[in-house]
C-alpha cells in the first residue's frame, strides 16, 4: 500500500524508506496492567502506521487523561499527553495550523464523553482533520473503577454501590447525532478488523471517530466478552460492509429490514426474503439510517451490535476551509503590510 491510497494525507510528507512496526516503538516501558486491551490496540497501531508511508516526524498523537491517554508515550512519533478531555481542542489547534501533519487523538469513554464531551461533539461537527480513537471499556480505570458514561444502568461500582442510575451514551449514536463525517466501531481483540477500520479512518479527510471496544481486565473484565466469545459473537454482532446486505448470525440467518413505520428491525431472513434486507450505505448523505443502525444494539445484552464503518461521507474539512479563506483573501488583497496596517486610513502629521 502506498500513501497514494490516502488522498486525505496528501499534504503530509512521505517517508523516504519503507518502515516497520519497530520504527514506531518508543523506548518507554509500557505501564498498562498486564492483560489490558490497550496492548492489542498499541500493537495494531504500530503495525498499521508503516502502511501510511508518512514521515514519522509528521505524525502526532495527542491524548487527554486516563489509561488510554498514556498511549502517545509508547509511539516513537511526536506526542502530547494533555489534560482531561481537552485533546480534541488541542488537536484542533495543531491540525488547523499544520496541514502537513497526520494528527491522531487517543481518548477513552470518560475522557471523551464526560469531561470532554463538548470538545468531542464540536470537533465532529467542524470536521477538523483529526482521527479520534475512543477506547471504550465502560468504566473509569485510572481513578480505580467508577461507572463511566457508557456503563450500563444499574452497574455496581465504587461510586454506585446500589447500582448506577445514569443512562448511558452510545458513542456512535452521539457522533452521528453531531453529524460526524466518519464514524466506525471496532474491537481490540480483532486485529484485522481494527486495522481495516484504522486504514479507512486514515483515508478520510476530516474528523474520524473510531470507537474501539476495549477490555479493562481489572475494573470491568469481560465487558465485551459476548462479542469476542467464539460461541456467541456471530449471533450478537453484525459486521457492516459498505454495499453489502446487513446480515449476521452463525449461519448468516439474520438480517436488518426497514419496517413500515420506518424503524429498523432484526429479522430471520427466511421469513422476509433476502431482497428485503437493507444494504449498508456508508456514503449516504443523510445520517439517519446509520443512526438507526447504531440504535439496534442492546447495551446490556450486546445483542444486535453493529461493528464496522457506519458512516464515511465527504465534506470539506474545517482546516481546509480556513486555509482556503486565507489564501483567497491574500490573493484578492495581497499579503498584508504591517506599516500600512498601523497607519490605517485616518492619520495626521505633526512636524
Amino acid at each position, binding site marked *: 500500500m502506498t500513501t497514494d491510497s490516502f488522498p486525505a494525507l496528501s499534504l503530509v510528507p512521505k517517508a523516504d524508506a519503507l518502515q516497520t512496526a519497530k520504527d514506531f516503538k518508543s523506548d518507554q516501558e509500557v505501564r498498562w496492567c498486564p492483560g489490558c486491551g490497550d496492548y492489542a490496540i498499541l500493537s495494531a497501531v504500530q503495525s498499521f502506521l508503516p502502511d501510511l508511508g508518512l514521515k514519522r516526524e509528521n505524525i502526532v498523537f495527542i491524548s487527554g487523561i486516563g489509561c488510554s491517554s498514556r498511549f502517545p508515550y509508547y509511539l516513537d512519533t511526536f506526542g502530547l*499527553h*494533555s489534560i482531561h478531555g481537552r485533546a480534541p481542542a488541542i488537536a484542533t489547534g495543531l*491540525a*488547523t495550523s499544520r496541514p502537513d501533519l497526520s494528527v491522531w487523538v487517543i481518548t477513552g469513554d470518560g475522557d471523551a464523553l464526560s469531561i470532554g464531551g463538548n470538545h468531542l461533539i464540536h470537533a465532529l461537527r467542524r470536521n477538523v482533520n483529526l482521527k479520534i480513537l475512543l477506547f471504550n471499556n465502560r468504566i473509569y480505570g485510572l481513578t480505580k473503577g467508577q461507572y463511566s458514561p457508557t456503563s450500563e444502568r444499574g452497574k455496581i461500582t465504587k461510586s454506585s454501590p446500589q447500582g448506577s442510575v445514569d443512562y448511558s451514551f452510545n458513542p456512535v449514536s452521539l457522533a452521528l447525532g453531531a453529524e460526524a463525517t466518519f464514524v466506525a466501531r471496532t474491537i481490540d481483540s480483532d486485529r484485522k478488523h481494527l486495522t481495516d477500520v484504522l486504514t479507512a479512518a486514515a483515508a478520510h479527510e476530516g474528523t474520524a471517530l473510531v470507537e474501539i471496544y476495549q477490555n479493562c481486565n481489572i475494573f470491568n473484565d469481560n465487558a465485551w466478552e459476548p462479542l469476542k466469545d467464539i460461541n456467541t459473537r456471530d449471533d450478537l454482532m453484525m459486521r457492516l460492509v459498505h454495499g453489502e446486505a446487513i446480515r449476521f448470525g452463525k449461519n448468516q440467518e439474520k438480517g436488518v429490514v426497514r419496517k413500515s413505520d420506518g424503524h429498523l428491525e432484526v429479522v430471520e431472513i427466511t421469513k422476509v426474503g433476502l431482497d428485503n434486507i437493507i444494504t449498508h450505505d456508508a456514503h449516504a448523505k443523510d445520517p439517519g439510517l446509520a443512526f438507526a443502525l447504531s440504535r439496534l444494539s442492546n447495551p446490556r445484552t450486546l445483542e444486535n451490535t453493529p461493528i464496522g464503518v457506519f458512516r464515511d461521507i465527504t465534506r470539506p474539512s474545517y482546516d481546509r476551509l480556513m486555509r482556503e479563506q486565507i489564501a483567497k483573501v491574500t490573493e484578492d488583497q495581497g499579503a498584508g503590510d504591517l506599516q500600512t496596517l*498601523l497607519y490605517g486610513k485616518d492619520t495626521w502629521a505633526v*512636524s
Partner: protein
Amino acid sequence: MSKQIVQLNKVVIRFAGDSGDGMQLTGDRFTSETAGMGNDLSTLPDFPAEIRAPAGTLPGVSAFQLHFADHDIMTPGDSPNVLVAMNPAALKANLHDVPRGADIIVNTDEFTKRNLVKVGYETNPIEDGSLDQFKVHPVALTSMTVEALKEFEISKKEAERAKNMFALGLLCWLYHRPTEGTAEFLKAKFGKNPEIMKANLRAFEAGWSYGETTEEFSIQYEIKPAPMKAGTYRNMSGNLALSYGLIAASKLSGLTLFLGSYPITPASDILHELSRHKRFGVMTFQAEDEIAGVGAAIGASYGGALGVTTTSGPGVALKSEAIGLAVSLELPLLVVDVQRGGPSTGLPTKTEQSDLLQAMFGRNGEAPVPIVAPQSPSDCFFAAIEAARIAITYRTPVFLLSDGYLANGSEPWCVPDVSLLAKIDPNFATELNHEAADGTMEFWPYLRNPETLARPWAIPGTAGLEHRIGGIEKTDGAGTISYDADNHDKMVRLRQAKVDAIARTIPELVVDDPDGDARVLIMGWGSTYGPIGAACRLVRTEGKSVAQIHLRHLNPFPSNLENILKSYDRVILPEMNLGQLSMLLRAKYLVDIISYNQVRGMPFKSDELATVINDVLESV
C-alpha cells in the same frame, strides 16, 4: 450675528443618551475630528451590559466622555464641562458627575411626562429650578432634526434616529471642529442607502447651522492643537492596539498568529479585529468554549505557531488548568485578559484590575506565569509585543493584563516605524542535543538553555526530534515521565527560576521625580498610569514633590524595584481592586505600602488621587 470666540486649553465633553441613540458613534466621530485638529485627547466610553435596555430607563443609558486639550493630557477627565443629555434618564444618570457651572445641553423633546416618570422625576428638571446651578441649554433636538429632514423620503422614525448627528453638528460648531471627516464617514457607512446617508448628513449640517444662528449659544470655543513630537499620528483604542501588537509580534517572530477564543466582553473586539486580517496569515478559531480556545492555542503553539487566547476574568478561571498545562509543557502561549468587574459575571462592561492575583496564582501547583500590563490604550501595542517576546524566548505562557478602560478608551498614537521594532527569534530546535551513555546522540526536550533556562522548542515535522511531552512531571533534561521526589523538587524550582530569570531582560524602572527630592512615591500598574500621572502633575503644580513609578512587568518584577521602594518614606499604591499588587509587594519586599483602593467600575479621578497624595505628604 457674530459670536464671541473664547480660547480654552481643555474641555471634557460627555455625550449621554439611550443605548439606541448612537452615543458611542457620536463620541467616536467627535473624537476623530478632534484628533485631526491636533489636540491631545483621551476617551472613556461607558455603556451598559444590556444590548438594548428598555428605552428611556436608567439601565439603558450609554455615555461617551472625551477630554481634549492644547497640551499633553493623561486621562479622559474627572468630570465633564459639558454634558449632552439626550433624555431624562441620561440627565439623571450623569448629573452627579457634572460640576456646578458646567454646560448641559438637553434634548427637550424627550422630556415628556412619560419619560420623566420613567426615571422618577416628579417635575421637569429643566423647568423646576433644580438645574439652576448649571448653564442649561434646552434644544429641541428631535423635532428640529425631523423638521430638517422633512423633504427626505424616510420614515419619521428614521428621521428621529438622525438626532445624534444633529447633536454632533452642534457640538462641532461649538468647538470649531472640522466637518469633512464626518461627511466622508457617513458616505461610507450609509453608502448602500443614499437617502439615509443624505438625511444624516443634512441633520449634521442642520446642527452646525443651528449653533451658528441660535441665540442659545453665544460663545464659540477654540482649543489650539497640542504640541506633540513630530510624526504621523492616528487615534488608537486599546483593543485595536492590542490586536495590531499581536500581528506585529507574529511578523517580528515569523510565526503564524493563531487565536483561539470564545466571545466575552470586553475582549471580543480583539477576536473581531484579528479575524479581519487573514492577509497577514492570521488564523482565528472561535472555539466552543473558553477551554477549547486556550486548548487550540496550545495545540497551535506545539506546532510552532504563536498561540494566543483572549478573554476576560471568568474565561481565565475556565482556562486555568490548560494554562497550567502550558506551564508544564513549557510552550509559548499568550493569555490576554481584558479585565472587567468581578467576581462571577460581575460588571461585564466596567473596568477593574482585580485579576492580578488570579493571573499570578490561579492555577494548581507551583505554576509561575509572567505578567505584563499595558499602561494606556496605545501602549497595548507594545505590551503585546513584549508579552510575545517573553513567551517565545522563555517558552512559557504569559499573561497580558489589559482592562475595560484601556480596551475601549482611545488616545492619539504616534505610529511607530515597524523597521525599528526588534525581531523575536523563535530559535526552533533542529539538532539532537544530548550524548547518551553509549555515545549516540539523542534529543532531550527539557535540556535547558543555561542562560534563559528555556527548553528547546522542537516542533512536529523536525526529523529525528520525535519526543513525547505532557502534564505529568518530567525528568530534568530527558523529559521522560518521572515521579521521583528530588526530581520534582528540582523541576518546580527550575520552572520558578526560569520565570525569575526574565527579570534580567526587563528594563530597570525609571523614577519620575522632577525635583529629585521627593520623600513620597506613588506607584501603580496597568491603566491607572493616566490618573496617577495627572494627579502627580496637580500636586507638583502646587509646588510639592512626589515621585512616580509605574509597573509594566508584574511577574517577575523589575530588578531595581526593591531599592526604589525602600528609598522613600512612604509608598502609595492606588489600585482598582482591594490591594492585590500591594499584597504582593508587602509579602516580597516587606515594605509598608499605603494601599488606596476603589472598585467602582470606572477609572480613578486625578483629583481624588491628588488628595490622597496630599494627605500622605502632610503626614511625612
